[in-house]
């Protein structure tokens, strides 16, 4: 039977296509004289596909995909906001895209990196910044290595990190990569960090600090944040702020003022650079003065002779990535900050929270909200009490049928059948109302016609796919 899928590798012609090879305008030597035969390969099992076939193939594939430009993308903790087109045009300017990382005449790039560090410093309250980390998790690793180095320099042995059970999975994984073991802290019934448990955990003496997301993954701002950071500091620890949820705090409240010592930002969330189907991102980290000497090298500093690049001062954790970081992403974020300015950024925070609460109020009429109180950028509903044993996965797959993307599902882990919803500030009221309308319709279907949910999706290129088969018998290429 013919497959429903056509891979590009099935296309191609025998013609030797040479469209993209410039003229060979020098005298050519016998390749065998340049390189011994034994080092050469015989064939390359890759087809020669005419340009029109390639273009049509990918345009067809794009029709089977969904982006923020298609419609609402309410993935909790992912901040799927609109990506301004001007930032794309700017990033493609030759003076940015064609610059070599090792060229000397790079004052434009250096100035941009320096300026955005200052902006991010103002936004978070932090003193020193590095732009090297390529993503949020990469920033977490850098931040935790800084913690490790800091205590190593002080000659204090600290081997554990406290992470609440509502944290993003990257937090414990990053702590582990930096050589720490994890103390998991159970959230209380308010979805917040229980102060007495934290106090107890910190008293062990070998705890380097805490990793915290605030607002947390339930969308709740921890009212005791100052007490939390105080407890950690009193016990000689440091506080790490996971900036994945910074969007609603823009212009409202700064991690430094909450008592944090290290923060990472996700430029591909808060600062509107495109997610690109999973990357590239950028995860700069900011630190307080005491920790600045430990930042990855190189750092850019301002001197009498202008901006200069400072190499190791001996305390740095070293490099975390080659060259300067994901510069192309940083350019877009810088342009975004300049476009919005102080006023615009404040409006981002406010409207992100307005939109989330608007959805929350309308959805709570039918759906169960385990933590139903004013939220910040996101909130979580649960499949508990759904009619006819309808699960979160059923709801999500049915949402896809209505032509929009589903929320984050089964996260945070502390809520049974979680659906985590983050609309962001760039969704219009019409778009939010449409989402509510669909969710209400799905609730009615769950009551009246549960089969249609259980077998969803129906209107997409494929029906529900077999994840078990994919994992038991992995087919990872053709």
């Amino acid at each position, binding site marked *: 039977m013919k497959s429903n899928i056509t891979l590009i*590798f099935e296309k191609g012609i025998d013609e*030797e296509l040479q469209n993209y*090879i410039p003229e060979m305008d*020098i005298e050519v*030597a016998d*390749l065998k004289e*340049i390189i011994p035969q034994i*080092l050469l*390969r015989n064939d390359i*099992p*890759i087809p*020669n596909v005419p340009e029109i076939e390639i*273009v049509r193939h990918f345009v067809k*594939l794009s029709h089977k995909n969904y*982006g*923020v430009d*298609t419609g609402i993308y309410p993935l909790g903790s992912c901040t799927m906001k609109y990506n301004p087109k*001007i930032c794309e045009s700017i990033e*493609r*300017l030759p003076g*940015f*895209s064609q610059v*070599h990382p*090792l*060229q000397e005449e*790079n*004052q*434009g*790039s250096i100035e941009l990196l320096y300026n955005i560090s200052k902006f991010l410093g103002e936004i978070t309250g932090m003193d020193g910044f590095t732009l090297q980390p*390529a993503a949020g998790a990469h920033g977490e690793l850098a931040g935790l290595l800084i913690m490790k180095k800091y205590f190593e320099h002080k000659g204090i042995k600290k081997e554990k990190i406290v992470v609440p059970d509502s944290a993003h999975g990257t937090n*414990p*994984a990053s702590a582990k990569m930096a*050589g720490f073991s994890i103390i998991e802290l159970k959230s209380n019934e308010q979805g917040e960090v229980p102060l007495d448990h934290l106090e107890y955990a910190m008293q062990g003496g070998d705890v380097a600090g805490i990793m915290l997301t605030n607002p947390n993954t339930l969308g709740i*701002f921890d009212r005791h944040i100052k007490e939390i950071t105080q407890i950690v500091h009193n016990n000689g620890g440091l506080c790490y702020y996971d900036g994945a949820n910074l969007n609603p705090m823009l212009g*409202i*409240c700064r991690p430094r003022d909450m008592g944090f010592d290290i923060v990472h930002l996700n430029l591909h969330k808060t600062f509107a650079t495109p997610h*690109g*189907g*999973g990357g590239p991102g950028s995860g700069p980290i900011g630190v307080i003065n005491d920790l600045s000497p430990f930042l990855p090298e190189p750092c850019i500093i301002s001197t009498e002779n202008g901006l200069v690049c400072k190499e190791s001062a001996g305390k740095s954790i070293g490099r975390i*990535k*080659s060259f300067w*970081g994901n*510069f192309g992403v940083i350019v877009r974020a810088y*342009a975004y900050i300049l*476009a919005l*300015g102080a006023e615009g950024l404040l*409006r*981002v925070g406010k*409207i992100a929270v307005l*939109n989330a609460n608007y959805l929350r*109020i309308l959805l709570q009429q039918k759906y169960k909200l385990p933590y139903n109180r*004013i939220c*910040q950028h996101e909130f979580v509903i649960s499949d508990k009490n759904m009619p006819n044993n309808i699960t979160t996965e059923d709801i999500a797959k049915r949402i896809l049928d209505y032509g929009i993307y589903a929320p984050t599902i089964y996260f945070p882990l502390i809520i049974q059948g979680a659906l985590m919803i983050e609309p962001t500030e760039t969704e*219009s009221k019409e778009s939010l109302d449409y989402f509510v309308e669909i969710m209400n319709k799905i609730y009615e279907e769950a009551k009246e016609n549960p089969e249609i949910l259980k077998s969803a999706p129906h209107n997409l290129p*494929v*029906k529900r796919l077999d*994840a078990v088969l994919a994992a038991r018998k*992995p087919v*990872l*290429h053709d």
Partner: protein
Amino acid sequence: MDFVPHDRKTITEMLRVIGVADIEELFQDIPKDLIKEKLDLPTGLSEPDLFRHMEEISRKNKIYTSSFLGAGCYYHYIPSLVDFVISRSEFYTSYTPYQAEASQGYLQAIYEYQTMISRLTQMDIANASMYDGSTALAEAAIMTTLITNKKSIFMLEGIHPEYIEVVKTYCWGQNISIEITTEDKLLNQLNEDVAALLFQSPNFFGDIEDISKLVKHVREKAPNCLLVQVMTDPTCLGVIKPPGLTDIDIFVAEGQSFGISPSFGGPGLGIFTAKKKYLRKMPGRLVGKTKEINGTREGFILTLQAREQHIRREKASSNICTNQALCSLAALVYLLAMGRTGLKGIATQNFQKAHYLKSKIGKIPGYKILNTKPTYNEFLVKCPSIDSLIYQCKQRNLLPPLKISKYYPQMKNTALVCITEMNSKDSIEAFIQAAQVALNNKAEG
């Protein structure tokens, strides 16, 4: 400007539905003294003002007519259709394809990327990407320690110095020891406690190693030591033997050469491949082919996710989440556009043009090619005065080669020269002229 689509009336209406008087009320959980008064940032700009401002900054970076600089970041021709495809907003404004049925387009593209990389490298499996070549190498080092349960890594000199630094940083985090050594000393030092040998070929200095020989020696001396190869410009695979045919355990590379602009060194693409038996220890995302649960159609899905941090949390072998998806799409489109003919053609031109310049430079008195092994598109030249050569290049609007003392202070007056298919004969002649003039005008340096 901002990108909020509400008018004032709408906001009032929404506040009424929520049941609060103003937006500030929604921030009631935040202690009053934590509320920031006003950010000290410039006022927002309109699009034309923003564009003008950004263009001015971009002009402070010099753009040359031709480049002789590589060292981990390369100027290769990028077919126009690469940017066309990655600019389809169904791709670039999408998230990680967690909802498979609504993401079949991107999932198939990643599956095709994995297939493309497997075929090009002849390695069993490729993941969906890492951040860049340096972090791919560091993650490979960590992966070998998990496979072997050993905590010692050897690296051969000739790995990109910044990659060495990154591997050191990652390994320090997990108390993995590192030894940097040479091929000569290696065989005496290898022992049963070594998890892996990491090496680069073509290496940082341009040398193409005889990998079959190296592999044979290592296997004889330490059968359980894994071999990890890294490459900074994998366009050479259009001509040279792929790592899958030389018994390499893990092969990683920087994929920037495959259709991605230099962009001041990022974003690039971390290519990560391995033998199939190491699949479960592999970091990063993987797309697999599967079938409908209740149907016959085939489709694609993120698979083996239980390896990853969002499920395994602190037990995961890596913390990677966001990767370089859009760059892997660019690489796929680039490699398809090239096809087998183009890949061979490009690699051949890089060999030929570099060889041409190498033989010409070597004949200028005072200049000496330092490579004794075959080279691809980079090679080392000892110069009478590197500063003078750099000056003369700039005079001719040529991006000068790397002054290698930046990384190896003891290697004075030595240039790492890079040539690709982008260098026309005219630019090569201009470089030769610059080298000749630099010889006569040492003082200018």
